[in-house]
């Protein structure tokens, strides 16, 4: 067996080809994105609460937050299809689901950003939480993660119960 054949076999054995060529079956992920959301919010809160004096808690918060970020990126791959392939482009139903899911999540994120802007007008008042530079950076990643999780969550709830292949 040549080196290239061995490398090919290793790729198939690990299942990486299924991710790269999107060979896996899309799933409706109705609850897992909510868990990732909860982890994002919890991680962000822990970081924001301990950023003044970084310690072990700060590291745990960072691990939770960025772990949830990674999970968000993976859930997007394994959830409802948002990207077609050359052999299987998205059909009209999938395009509709994708458009609606992204429209709803875009509106939700815009509303969140708007409320954040209103909050910032009061953030300088005593007793109000004022984000630091690290908090802003994490917020940017958090919104990015939410932008991946929300469409997956919404599209999963928009999908009817799958039709079994053996019904063919």
């Amino acid at each position, binding site marked *: 067996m040549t080196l290239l054949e061995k490398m090919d076999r290793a790729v198939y054995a690990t299942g990486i080809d299924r991710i790269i060529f999107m060979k896996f079956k899309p799933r409706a992920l109705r609850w897992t994105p909510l868990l990732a959301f909860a982890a994002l919010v919890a991680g962000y809160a822990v970081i924001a609460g301990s950023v003044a004096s970084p310690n072990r808690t700060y590291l745990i918060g960072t691990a939770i937050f960025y772990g949830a970020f990674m999970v968000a990126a993976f859930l997007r791959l394994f959830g409802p299809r948002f990207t077609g392939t050359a052999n299987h482009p998205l059909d*009209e139903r*999938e395009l509709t689901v994708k458009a609606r899911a992204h429209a709803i999540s875009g509106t939700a994120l815009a509303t969140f950003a708007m409320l954040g802007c209103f909050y910032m007008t009061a953030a300088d008042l005593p007793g109000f939480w004022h984000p630091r530079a690290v908090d802003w950076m994490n917020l940017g990643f958090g919104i990015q993660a939410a932008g991946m999780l929300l469409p997956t969550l919404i599209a999963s709830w928009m999908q*009817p119960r799958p*039709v079994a292949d053996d*019904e*063919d």
Partner: protein
Amino acid sequence: MTDLYNRIAVFRAERGVSRRELAEAVGVNNQTIGYLERGDYKPSLELAMKIAAYFDVPIELLFSFQPFESVAESLRRAAAVGE
């Protein structure tokens, strides 16, 4: 929203066409055909016409705003007319 009924499953069974074959012929995911048959998805006019063209029947034989008569009922009625 108005319900849209179809008898894609009946035509498919009659012609011995699998869901996957029909999906490939009209250019959609086979889950989409399943959702259509189950009434979970309403097709675009383009898709409805493609499916009708595939079975070579007028579109109103496949899709209707009224529920279709069951096959058993149609056969019973046809037999009664024959007598």
